[in-house]
């Protein structure tokens, strides 16, 4: 097991190098370091001296991939790509283009992101499973078909509508919760209710469809029939057997998204003014802050890979037939 994880982590290195190559290539096709300097200096008049000193300060004065002024090893190592990539691999994210410490910012912004993503994830999971169980209980009835129809309808509406409608209804008209904002600790709960609610609701369509199909698959298995034949009531069958066995595929399916919860939700955070990593990323894209973009891409990729590894592990953990090799 341990050896397997180490090997998977080693495999991640070439992938992350590839990710960095793509980010650098894409970003520097758009922006010359001069552009970045100008954007960051933000003065009404920028002079060449100002730009040069900014570039030196932020390390953008080096060539991108190949340094022709250096000999032998310096050819590839004394370049922007090499220097920055090495730092990333040691999780030293350095400074943003506007001069802030990225690691400190990420650490600070991780919590608000989690404060939304985690409740959304857990409440969503519980609600979806509960509804799915309920309609599996009434499978084949009108309730089932109505719910499934609603589920497709919910899936077919853009999340932007839910957000706009939610804000108008709950905050503007009914005065239940603040329209946007964030606070730490218990005070923060009232800010989180609406985004979490909307997050749960917009995921409910796809969620219950998936869980329903898992439960239905389970319910047709022999052991369930046997249980029923023994005279167990339907509810007992559902909770005692179907839910228990259905949870395994559900858990192995959702494990992959858990690490990416850290990254936050782009849309939700910027609509509700929540200072998480999602809005951090969006701001960085919009202000074309390369320092942050490359850090977030790197972090996202790492978390994705961690998710994959976790999935593999959860398979072996829950299903003894699968062996990691």
């Amino acid at each position, binding site marked *: 097991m341990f050896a397997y994880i180490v090997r998977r982590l080693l495999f991640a290195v070439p992938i992350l190098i*590839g990710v960095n190559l793509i980010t650098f290539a894409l970003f520097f096709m*758009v922006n010359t370091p001069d552009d970045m300097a100008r954007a960051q200096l933000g003065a009404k008049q920028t002079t060449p001296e100002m730009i040069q000193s900014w570039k030196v300060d932020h390390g953008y004065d080096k060539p991108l991939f190949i340094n022709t002024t250096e000999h032998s090893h310096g050819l590839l190592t004394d370049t922007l790509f090499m220097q920055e990539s090495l730092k990333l691999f040691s999780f030293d994210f350095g400074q943003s283009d506007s001069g802030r410490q990225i690691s400190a910012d990420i650490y600070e912004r991780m919590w608000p992101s989690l404060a939304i993503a985690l409740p959304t994830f857990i409440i969503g999971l519980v609600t979806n499973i509960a509804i799915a169980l309920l309609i599996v209980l009434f499978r084949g009835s009108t309730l089932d078909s109505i719910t499934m129809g609603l589920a497709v309808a919910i899936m077919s*509406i*853009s999340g932007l*509508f839910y957000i706009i409608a939610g804000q108008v209804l709950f905050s503007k008209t009914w005065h239940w919760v603040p329209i946007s904002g964030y606070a730490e600790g218990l005070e923060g709960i009232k800010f989180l209710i609406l985004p979490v609610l909307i997050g749960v609701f917009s995921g409910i369509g796809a969620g219950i469809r998936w869980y329903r199909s898992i439960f239905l698959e389970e319910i047709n298995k022999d052991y369930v029939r046997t249980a029923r034949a023994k005279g167990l009531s339907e509810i007992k069958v559902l909770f005692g057997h179907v839910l228990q066995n259905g949870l395994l595929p559900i858990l192995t399916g959702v494990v992959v998204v858990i690490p990416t919860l850290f990254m936050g939700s782009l849309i939700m955070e910027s609509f509700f003014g929540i200072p998480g990593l999602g809005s951090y990323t969006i701001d960085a894209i919009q202000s074309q802050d390369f320092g942050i973009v490359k850090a977030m891409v790197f972090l996202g990729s790492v978390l994705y890979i961690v998710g994959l590894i976790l999935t593999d592990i959860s398979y072996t953990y829950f299903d003894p037939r699968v062996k990691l090799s």
Partner: protein
Amino acid sequence: MMLTFLWTDIMIWSLFALIILGIYQISKDAQKRIQWRNVFKSKTAMISAIILLFYFAIALMDSMHFKFESAENNTLNKELVSVLDMGLEHLILNAERTYSAPFALKEYSSSVIYNTTGNVQQVYLPLKNVAKHIDMQQSLVAYDVITQTGWAFLIALVIIIAIILIHGYFRLKKLAMSSARIKTESLPWSVAYITLFLLIFIGTWFYLLSFDYHVLGTNKVGEDVLYQSLKSIRTGVLIGGLTTVVMLPLALLLGISAGYFKGWIDDVIQYLYTTLNSIPGVLLIAAAVLVMQSIMSTHAEWFGSTQERADIRLLFLIFILGMTSWTGLCRLLRAETLKISQIEYVTAAKAFGLKPFTIIRKHILPNLVHLILIALVLDFSGLVLAEAVLSYVGVGVDPTMPSWGNMINQARLEMAREPMVWWSLLSAFIFMFILVLSANLFADRVQWVLNPRSEK
């Protein structure tokens, strides 16, 4: 006046040709015919398919452009005019100054005017291009709308009866020709007729009334929202329909090669898509869109008109979205190919020394078609929704291009007005919802029928 095709026009017409070709192939193959009949046996699938066809038809009409050499007969002030634009010419020409509500006769907000005595007044200006035939009398509007509704109903009735008669004739003929022994279960045609009737009725109703009213209101600069919504259909259909198609060759090539050749080829291809996949989607798209913008602005001379520019941008966007979404399909194809190449007849073919290309073409590719089709229909709705989100982030289609994403984006500000300007958002919502819902329902059915693993 000259018929011209923009890049995306060519693509959507190719898609059309592809679909026709597909239908032809299906009609030749008895087994596939039964399969597809099975798809349409479901009432919801039938309704969804008709609605999708309707949207697709509008998109096609909007994808046939005429270029005007000179401005003399160019009343629309555009260089490129599509067939749809010609049909809706009145909607372009009767633009107002600013917001007006559906069926309103006056502007939505008051404005300042100098009256004859030179004083300033705050009034709700009357709209320029509505209800002229009833002298803009508010009291007559309801009556007028009802009469026109009656007409629309009649027209739709006539059309649908004609369609039923024509279609009935063919069905009868076929019934008479087929032997009585083979009993084919009939498709739910009555539902199809009702759907068609409703669509025609609604279409005619909007069309008739759009001459005298702004049926869905006007937006900030007075453009008709109905026209905007209809023009957005093309953008939505293009993004939803073409994104998967453009990257199909790449996904097929890489997926099959990885699954068939294995070894280092498999490793390289797996590396490639894992790397691409591990970059957070929005970031990859945003970065690619920014690159595209910079390329486009350094080569501004490539584009003669704003529309061509917007078109190329849409094309790029489709490719970029494709770039980020082909990996999933590629992975599926690889797995399936791996499985198929273990089957006896494939290993046998290998043993006989058949060329890999022949084996792939004859034995593997045909067994992958259902996967591709399912991916195509499943991705459609997701992509239409993604367009809206991307526009919100600022990396969507060109801001001059009508799209639901742009409409929603604008509506965010409109919702803060009091009284709210709700019609743009509602129109975008309804037009988008119907398309995505039909696509989802149809996709469900297609998947259910085509996927051999789905329980029936």
